[in-house]
Structure formats: C-alpha cells, structure tokens
C-alpha cells in the first residue's frame, strides 16, 4: 500500500510518480524524459554524472583524447556484470555507442559522434566528426546507456520492454498503464543500492499526482505543477527542492510567414510581451525572464545581456511602421499536453493590446509536433527548449539554416550572419572566441527577433522528507542509487 | 335481383407470424346489397375485424376478389383506390383509440373532406361539418373540443360523423358499440338505423353481441377461426340455427328475463384451435359434440341447405 509509513520502520521501496508512460525502454530509441529516468537506473554509462553535476568515470575507468580531439579511447572497467549474468565487454560498449549514434532519436547528442570500434577486450575507440567540447556531457546522457549486446540483438522489441544493463537496478515488471518496477541488483559493481525497490507509478493527471504525494501515497515527483508548489512547500511531510532548469521558453515565430518574416513585426511582438505577467500567469511566477536563446546553465550564456524591453507604445509604433497600424490576425498553435495553452492565452491578451489578434488553435500533441516541429504548418507558437548538454552550441541545431527540414530549425531562420556565428561557435577551440561569437549572436537576436525568449524555467523535486540524497539539477534525470531512506 | 353493392369472393388474409401463417380470414364469400346490413358475428379473434379491414384494403388481402359495383378494387392502383375510399368508410371498435387525440372534433370530422380535395370555401366547410355533427346528434359547441374531453358515446358519434361526411355507399362498422354502455349503445344503434333509412347506406356490421346483430342486420354471417360457417337471413338464423357452433352461440345468450332461469345450459367444452397453420377439417370439431371422423382432414364447403341459408357442417352434407 501507498499509505504513509511511520518514519521508524525503514522503508525498502520508493514510489516515483510518472505523469505519463514511456513508450519504450530502449534508451537509444527514446527521447522521453520518463524513459530516461527508468533506463538511467538500469544502465551504466561510460561517464557518470554525480547529483551535483560533476562528471566522474563510470564504466570507463579512464579515457584519453587524440591530439586533434577527434578520437577518444575508453578503458572499460573489468568484472562488471550485466543483470543477466553476462560480463561486460568492449563489444557491448561499442555496440551500445553505435546503436545510439545510428538512432534518429539521439541526434541532439550524437551529432558530433561518428562511430565506435573495439580496440581490444577492454578498450573502445570513439571517433568524432569534429572536436566537440561537450562530448563528455553527451556520453553521460541517459540515451547513451551501455546495453547487453546479446540480449538486445536477440530481440530488440523484447529488449525495449525489458532492458538489460549493468546498473544498480534491474528491470522487474512493467504493468502497462500502471507502473514499472525495478529492484536493486545484487551483483552491482559498486555497493548495492540502499533502496531495494523502485516503482514508477503512472499517474496521468499531475494535479492528482501532487495530491497523492501530499497524502503520502507516493514519494517522489519532479517538475510539479506550479500551482501546487506552494502547498508542497507548506507540507511538513515533504521536502521541496528547486534549481534552474536547462530549458527556456520562447515564442516561436515562423520566419517564413508572410507577415512574421517582416523584422519590424517581430520586433513589435518582442516589445509587446510582458514577461513578468507571462511568468506570473503561465508558471505561477516560478521562472526568470529570459533575454537570450541560450540556456542559463550553458557555457557561453551572457549573463548581463538585455534584450528588448516591454514597451507597448514602441510596439505599436513598430507595427505601424511595418504597415500594420491596425494589427492583424494570426493563428497560434498550442497544445495543452505541454502546458502551452496558458502562455498562449496570456500572449493573446498581451498582443491583443497592440492589435494582433491571436486565434488559439489548441491541438493534440501529435498535431503540434506535426504542425510546428515539422516547421511546415504554423504561424506562431511557444515552445520550450531544453539543452542536452550545457553548452551554448545547443542552439545550433535549432537555428542554423542547414537544419531546416533535416534538422530542427522549425523556425525557418535563414540568416547568413547567424549561420556564420553558429559555425564559429561550434568549431572554434578558443573559449574566448566562442564566448564572443555567442555574444554577437545575442546582439543579432535583439535586432532580428527570430524568436522571443520569454522565461527560463526552474526544475524542482517534491519528495518525502525522509528521502535523503536528493539534489535537483537541470536535466531532471535522477539516479536513485544515490538516495536512501532516513 | 340487381348487382350487389359489394361482393367478396374467396377472400383470404394470412398474417405472417414467426410460427407460420395465421389464417385470419380464410376463404370468405359474401355479398351486400344496397341499403342492406350484413352482420358478422363470432368470437374474439376469429377474424371479423380483419375481414372488415381487408374489404376496405386497409390490410392487403392475401388473395381473393373484392367487387365494388362489379369492379375488383384489389386491382386498383394507389390513386384509384384513394379515390374509391370516399365511398367505402369504416367506423372503428374503440372510440378511444380511433380518434386522433391532438385533433379537435371539427378537425377530425373535416379531415376526410380535406384530404379528398374539398373545393368549397371555409364557410361551406364549416357549414358542412356542422350539418354532419347535427346529423349524428353532436352539439355544435363541441366543434373545438378534444376527444379526451368527451365520453365514449360522443366519441363514437364523431367516428360516425367522420365516416358519413363523404356520403359513402358502404360502411364497415367494426363493433361500434361494444365499448359502450347499454343505453348509449342503444342511442348509437338507433342512429345507425335512421341513417340507413335516410341515406340508403349499406353496412357490414361486426359484433360479438348476438342480440345487437339480430336487431340491426338483414343477413348474418357466423365466423369461426377465419371461416364462415353459417350464413342466413337474420330471422332464419335465430329461428333455426344449424351449425353446432351457431347453436351454442345462441344458447349462450342470456336473455334479460327469467324464462330460462334454472334451466340446465348446454356448455361447450374443449379448447379453441389456433388460427396459425390450422389443419384441414372443421375447426370447431375439437369443441363439437357431433364431431366425427368425417369432420377431419378435409375442408368442409358451405352448402345451401334451404334458400338463403348456408352452413358448413358435415351434418348437413
């Protein structure tokens, strides 16, 4: 039962709330944070990330870079056992890496990787396409889990529902629609996990999930609904943890749209948006105004940069200059699934003040993906972008013109200057040069307003206060191995 | 004798039921002259109403001919039949369900005129309605009443008015008085007979009440499970019933006097046969004291045993 246990009898299980259900537990074939959370317990990684974010050796005891920075040699830890009893080999590692590189789901983190090969029984060589500063972060990403090659190749589909790794927890059961359970792995190469069982309980409605948490029916949830934060903070049985998230919310303007392709219009929109009100109404105040497209947690984030400010008169002026003194009508594509309806409604109100009438089209998530993320069928929207690695380069795949259609440039930005700056930021080995490039990008952004960054989000955790070892961090994928009951 | 107004030849109406064909009307022959009344008697469910309906083609006969003034109306197409309907009317058994509860008395009575393309003006229409209402003894003040506000006797008069407003030649009266009290029954019967005298209507008068049928009919047909088993002049039938069933029927009448009090009665025994897929042979045989081998397995023809008196029974073959 999920009833509150008195603190005296030590618990051996943890109930972790999921507000959805993973589609697959094949780490390379998913881009779903919930799936990450599960596979992150089951698999180990070449490089481990500690709760505070520092990177430490994982299954790779040591590694070294080639001189030009395009090859890395990993020395694999010995005598590590898989959950099925197999011993970890370089084969498994190379297979796992190549599998991830070949997947279309991992492009954000594997775009710099070329291929992996076995050097000897305990050595693996990873080739890169170009030197890449954030590569270690990428390798610590949940998608890069080291899987058991034999089990995977036997039946990839079965593996997707019953993954086999070397991690602290092994897969136990997946009750569709209900829960996924894991249990501590006895032969883990480090100490056995303190908490014996983990249940990821699926509760589609996040409001009710919070209630369950308040009632002590469940123990752990993250990214709790903003409206519930206050009550969670007040609840004496719960502990609330918060930190800056790696994601930024911004208004997406289809740069190819007839009206929005007009720079003045975009500038007007930027001036018309009251970020404070937006933060208050959309995220209950739990956010910080964003000035740049670059994540606050990333290398290259210009902390002092100020974008255009909220100025309705200016906005009206610009709009008149652009030839729309009476404003215009535009379709705003929203999806409730990602909580994009609220920002939409607020923007509707704010832009309404300068005469831009928003027609909110609230669509299913799949339609949103199809219309907005494909870049083909929308005018205006909002989106949230999280970084896979803490480096300003994360904006490359979103805004480089080469990424239209093949990549993720669904804003349809085609700006040579921007392309040049992004390229510079990516290949340059000189940190100062890079920082400068990204500063220039921000200036360009202020001028062009390709998108309007609105606010950076926070990421938070609400957990049973007896649960120790909890530290929030921006990717919001936590290793329960580090947790224990008081 | 001139051509009868209505003549029915070998009329059959079978209903399809899931257990087989239900012989509601089975090979009936009869004829009605102008100004005459033919009474039809028989137990409940023997097919009296179906016969009446079939004659007006309110149910399509399974086979047989219905000659109206010598023409077979079974062959008429929809339009021709619709035009003929004005001459062939019906008064229904139940004065409660046979009137549209949402139509006023006036509307109900006017309906036949309207659907048959009455040409006159509004005033003429209402005059005609008022005349007809007067004829059947309905006060004009009732013209805007709804049927539910009226009693059975008045309702039956509305049914009567509706049937006669087109001045038909022939009216099927399907138990028009059996739902009514004796005194109202008497009022309606008097009215029907008066109308006949005045307008020379012909009636097919259906009832199960023998005293009523004797009172009003010129000729009587006795039905038993879809068949006609005896047909005679009214007086003849009462004076000299031949078929064992007719005899039982007449015996069962309880006269409102003490003459037969205390006398033993002949009571029928046995069960009524089902009208569904009846086996050939006399359908009354299971209840008949005179039944013998000869009554079974063959159809028994209606035979004229004395002038105008027909009976279908092996005793008279």
């Amino acid at each position: 039962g999920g009833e509150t246990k008195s603190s005296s009898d030590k618990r051996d299980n943890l109930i972790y709330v999921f507000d959805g259900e993973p589609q697959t537990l094949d780490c390379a074939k998913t881009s779903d944070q919930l799936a990450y959370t599960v596979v992150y317990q089951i698999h180990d990684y070449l490089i481990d990330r500690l709760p505070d974010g520092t990177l430490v050796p994982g299954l790779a005891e040591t590694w070294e870079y080639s001189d030009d920075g395009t090859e890395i040699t990993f020395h694999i830890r010995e005598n590590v056992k898989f959950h099925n009893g197999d011993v970890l080999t370089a084969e498994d590692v190379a297979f796992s890496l190549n599998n991830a590189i070949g997947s279309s789901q991992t492009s954000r983190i594997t775009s710099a990787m070329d291929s992996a090969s076995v050097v000897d029984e305990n050595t693996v060589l990873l080739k890169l396409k170009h030197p890449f500063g954030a590569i270690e972060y990428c390798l610590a990403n949940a998608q890069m889990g080291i899987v058991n090659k034999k089990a995977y190749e036997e039946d990839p589909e079965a593996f997707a529902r019953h993954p086999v790794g070397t991690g602290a927890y092994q897969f136990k059961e997946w009750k569709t629609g209900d829960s996924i359970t894991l249990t501590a792995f006895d032969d883990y190469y480090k100490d056995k996990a303190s908490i014996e069982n983990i249940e990821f309980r699926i509760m589609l409605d996040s409001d009710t999930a919070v209630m369950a948490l308040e009632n002590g029916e469940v123990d752990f949830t993250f990214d709790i609904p903003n409206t519930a934060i206050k009550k969670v903070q007040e609840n004496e049985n719960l502990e609330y943890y918060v930190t800056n998230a790696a994601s930024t919310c911004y208004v997406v303007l289809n740069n190819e749209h007839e009206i929005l392709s007009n720079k003045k219009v975009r500038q007007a929109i930027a001036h018309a948006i009251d970020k404070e009100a937006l933060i208050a109404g959309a995220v209950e105040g739990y956010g910080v105004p964003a000035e740049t497209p670059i994540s606050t947690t990333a290398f290259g984030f210009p902390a002092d940069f100020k974008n255009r400010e909220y100025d309705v008169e200016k906005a009206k002026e610009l709009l008149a200059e652009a030839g729309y003194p009476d404003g215009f009508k535009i379709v705003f594509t929203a999806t409730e699934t990602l909580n994009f309806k609220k920002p939409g409604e607020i923007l509707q109100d704010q832009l309404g003040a300068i005469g831009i009438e928003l027609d909110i089209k609230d669509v299913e998530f799949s339609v949103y993906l199809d219309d907005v993320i494909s870049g083909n069928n929308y005018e205006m929207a909002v989106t949230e972008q999280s970084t896979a690695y803490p480096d300003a380069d994360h904006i490359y795949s979103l805004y480089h013109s080469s990424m239209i259609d093949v990549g993720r440039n669904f804003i349809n930005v085609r700006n040579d200057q921007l392309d040049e700056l992004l390229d510079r930021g990516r290949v340059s080995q000189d940190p100062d040069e890079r920082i400068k490039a990204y500063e220039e990008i921000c200036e360009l952004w202020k001028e062009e307003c390709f998108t309007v960054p609105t606010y950076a989000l926070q990421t938070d955790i609400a957990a049973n206060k007896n649960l120790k070892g909890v530290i929030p961090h921006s990717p919001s994928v936590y290793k329960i191995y580090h947790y224990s009951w008081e | 004798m001139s051509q009868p107004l209505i003549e029915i030849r070998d009329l059959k109406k079978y209903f399809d039921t899931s257990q087989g064909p239900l012989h509601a009307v089975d090979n009936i022959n009869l004829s009605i002259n102008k100004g005459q009344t033919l009474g039809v008697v028989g137990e409940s469910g023997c097919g009296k109403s179906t016969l009446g309906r079939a004659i007006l083609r309110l149910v399509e006969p399974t086979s047989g001919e219905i000659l109206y003034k010598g023409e077979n109306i079974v062959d008429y197409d929809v339009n021709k039949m619709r035009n003929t309907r004005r001459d062939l009317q019906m008064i229904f058994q139940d004065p409660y369900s046979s009137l549209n509860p949402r139509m006023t008395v006036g509307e109900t009575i006017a309906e036949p005129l309207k659907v048959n393309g009455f040409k006159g003006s509004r005033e003429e229409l209402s005059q005609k309605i008022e005349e007809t209402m007067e004829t059947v003894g309905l006060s004009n003040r009732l013209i805007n009443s709804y049927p539910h506000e009226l009693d059975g006797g008045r309702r039956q008069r509305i049914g009567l008015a509706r049937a006669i407003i087109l001045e038909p030649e022939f009216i099927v009266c399907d138990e028009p008085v059996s739902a009514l009290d004796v005194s109202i029954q008497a009022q309606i019967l008097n009215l029907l007979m008066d109308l006949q005298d005045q307008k020379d209507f012909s009636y097919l008068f259906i009832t199960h009440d023998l005293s009523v049928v004797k009172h009003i009919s010129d000729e009587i047909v006795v039905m038993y499970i879809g068949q006609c088993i005896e047909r005679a002049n009214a007086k003849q039938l009462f004076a000299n019933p031949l078929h064992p069933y007719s005899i039982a029927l007449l015996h069962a009448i309880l006269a409102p006097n003490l003459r037969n009090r205390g006398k033993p009665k002949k009571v029928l025994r046995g069960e009524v046969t089902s009208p569904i897929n009846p086996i050939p042979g006399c359908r009354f045989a299971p209840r008949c004291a005179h039944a013998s081998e000869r009554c079974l397995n063959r159809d028994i023809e209606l035979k004229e045993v004395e002038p105008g008196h027909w009976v279908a029974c092996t005793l008279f073959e």
Partner: protein
Amino acid sequence: MSEKLLEIDNLRVIYKTDEGVVQALNGLSFHMDKGETLGLVGETGAGKTTTALSILKLLPDKIGLIEDGSIKFNDFDIVTGSEQNMRKLRGDKISMIFQDPMTSLNPIIKIGDQIAEVLELHRADMTKSEIEARVDEILTTVGLPTSRKDEYPHQFSGGMRQRVVIAMALTCEPQLLLADEPTTALDVTIQAQVLELMKKLKENLNTSMLLITHDLGVVADICDRVAIMYAGTVVEMGTIEDIFEASNHHPYTIGLFGSIPDLENDAERLNPIKGLMPDPMNLPTGCYFHDRCQECMEICTIQEPDNHIVDEKTNHMIKCHLFDRTKHSDDLEGKMHEPAFN
C-alpha cells in the same frame, strides 16, 4: 329470516383527483344474507367496483376515501377495522374475482403458486403437501388439469385464467365472494362456461356472492336479489322477480331494460335513456337521475328521494319520489309504468 352477512349503510366514498373530488358512492345502502347472490347492476361509473373495493378496504391509497357510513361483515366493522384484521379477512372470509382475468394474475408466478399463496397466508397450520393437495383439489373443481399448475398465466386462455382466478378466490371457502364483472372480458360461449361453474361452486360451498355486472342477462341467470345502482346509490332493490317481473320500477330501471335489444321482440327502434350519467364531480341536486327522467317532477330537482318499499313481502325498494306514498298515495297506481320488456 336468514342471517345477515354483510350490511352496508349510507356509504359515501370519494376519490380525490387532480381535477376535483369524484363522488363515487353517495349514501349507498344494502345488505346481504348468508348464501344468497346479490346482483349489483349499473352503468359504467355507477360505483360498482368502488363498492367492492370498499368492502375489502382496498380503495386506492390516499385517493379513495370512505367519507361516511358503515360496512358490517358478520358484525365486524370494516370501516374502522384495523389493517391487520382486514388482512385476515381478505382472501379468507371475503374474496374477490376481478373483472379482467388477463391482468389480475401475476404474470411471472406459476398459477399453482398463486393459488397456494392464499393458503400460505391464511392456513398457517397446513403443511406443504396439504397445501399442494388443496391446490390440486381446487384446480380440479374449476375444471383445470392439475398437471398445468406449474404453468404461467400467459400459457392459458382467457376462460382458463378466469377459472384460475375463481379457484384462487374459493380455496379458503370464503363466506362472501365479490365477483366484479367476472365474465365481461370473456367470449359469450366461454362466459357461459364460467357462469355455470360459478353457480355450481357457490351452491356447493354455500358462499354468498355479490355479483357485479351491467349485464341483465347474467343477473337473470344467477342472482337471487338485485340492486340497481345509479350514480353511487341504489335506486331500486328487490328479489329477482321484483326487478324482472313486478310492475313497479324506478324510471332508470325502465330505461335500462328499454335499451337492450330484445331477441324475441323485433322492435324497429330501441328506447334508450336520453342523456348521460351525471358528472360524478358535479352531481345534480335532488334525484341524481332527474335530468334524464321522463317522469321528472319539480320535487325531483330539489329533494333527494327516500327509499320506498313498494312490496313489503319481498322488501322491494325504489328510491323515487313517484313512490312516495305520503304524497302520491292516491295516484300511485296511475303512475305505474309498463316495463319496456313486457
């Protein structure tokens, strides 16, 4: 003189309806002796069924109310009697046959069980097998094969169902049988069967019977005495001979007889009573029949007539001002009417 079994005195029953108060019985009085059959005759709405229901105290709850008067059954006062005592009477001492055999049997209970239920309710001392035996016996008595007791009502024809109802009414050998139009729903030939049966049973059990009907033929066949009802009162009561053969009658009785087509007499026209029963919510003053009466006198419109005994020997009663000897003693003979059926 024989013992009185039932005595009803000045009974007034009303029905409270949406439209108003229906005065169903207006000072109804009659009595019944042991072993006799009383015919209660009258038009629709005269209050015949109401009378029977009042005797059983089964008037519709909260709608039908006994306003006044008394009903005495063997000295037991039914009007004031408790519901518990009434339950003991019903089905045991007094039982009833309802008008429509098609609806008065429970469609989902086997007929044998329906009959047995009466015994279970009133003969607590009987064992299962005794009850069984009694059910078989009564079924045989009413002429139904005992093999069919496990069948359901819908498997029987109307006449057979009425036999079941009769069997049910007679299992406890009641002292009083209320038969409310027991044959109206039946075909003539079946009606004859059922009436024969009832006559026979009644004689065997020496049960008194209140036979409610509007069919004078049925009355002539089996009743000993007759009460003619009009608008909730008895307007004429006497022996069967008084009603059918004596020469003094209430004008309503005359009208009733005149309305029936006569098989033996080919009159061209019938002689219906003109007009209709008065509206029970709005009864006329004086004699309820006055506005339809061809003999209507002034007093009839004002004063309700008394019950006048016109034949002391038979207790032939007529409730009509015409027979008020105190006022019309001289010309009473002259006002006599030829009954229409003579």
